[in-house]
């Protein structure tokens, strides 16, 4: 599964994207955030306040309880500030 990071999430982790293989116990977006937060200091810093992290699966916004099964690309980013 491909994961992408944007804005300060990207900066804190130090990479824009990577391919991950989380264990089967990671079912939802929330589970994945928890699992990523345990992958090292930079990840812990990026995901230290999970409630401000937004997620998208295959280019569509999703909620934290969305099941990630079948996702090709998951993205994590802070609240958007475009426009």
């Amino acid at each position, binding site marked *: 599964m491909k994961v*992408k990071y*944007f*804005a*300060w999430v990207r900066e804190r982790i130090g990479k824009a994207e990577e391919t991950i293989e989380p264990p089967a116990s990671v079912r939802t977006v929330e589970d994945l955030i928890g699992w990523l937060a345990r992958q090292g200091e930079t990840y812990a810093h990026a995901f230290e306040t999970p409630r401000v992290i937004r997620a*998208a699966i295959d*280019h*569509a*916004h999703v909620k934290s309880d969305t099941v990630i099964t079948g996702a090709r690309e998951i*993205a994590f*980013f*802070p*609240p*958007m*500030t*475009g*426009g």
Partner: protein
Amino acid sequence: MAIPVTIRIQEADFDVAREIAALTKGRTDIGAVVSFSGICRGSEGDEAIAALTLEHYPGMAEAEITRHAQTALSRWPLTGLTVIHRVGRITPGENIVLVVTASAHRQAAFEAAEFLMDYLKANAPFWKREESAGGTSWIDAREHDDQAAARWTKS
């Protein structure tokens, strides 16, 4: 006849007059054109800003804007709409974003333009980083923008 919808994400500046002309030229069914230009300001609160850098999520940004453009077309009797969002480094006084809506009637053009801007602010995957004397920092999302977008949700 298909309603012309133009969506572009680009580093280059845009030309409001050219975009308005592209929607109206040769047509006599348009009574109202609204344009909104979002411009980089030189300060945020008390702090002077040297520049903004806009990052976006390629692919998703286009998809989100297209989705909201389709919603606007289904909700208002538009004859055309254009959304252009710049990315990269932008200095104070420069354009950031453009929305142009055209319709037979003024209220549809106004409402659709406001709707698109509110949704762009709250939902389109763009992020602004600002450069100031104190260094660079990511701009925080404003609660206000979520509320502005929420007013368009049918209850």
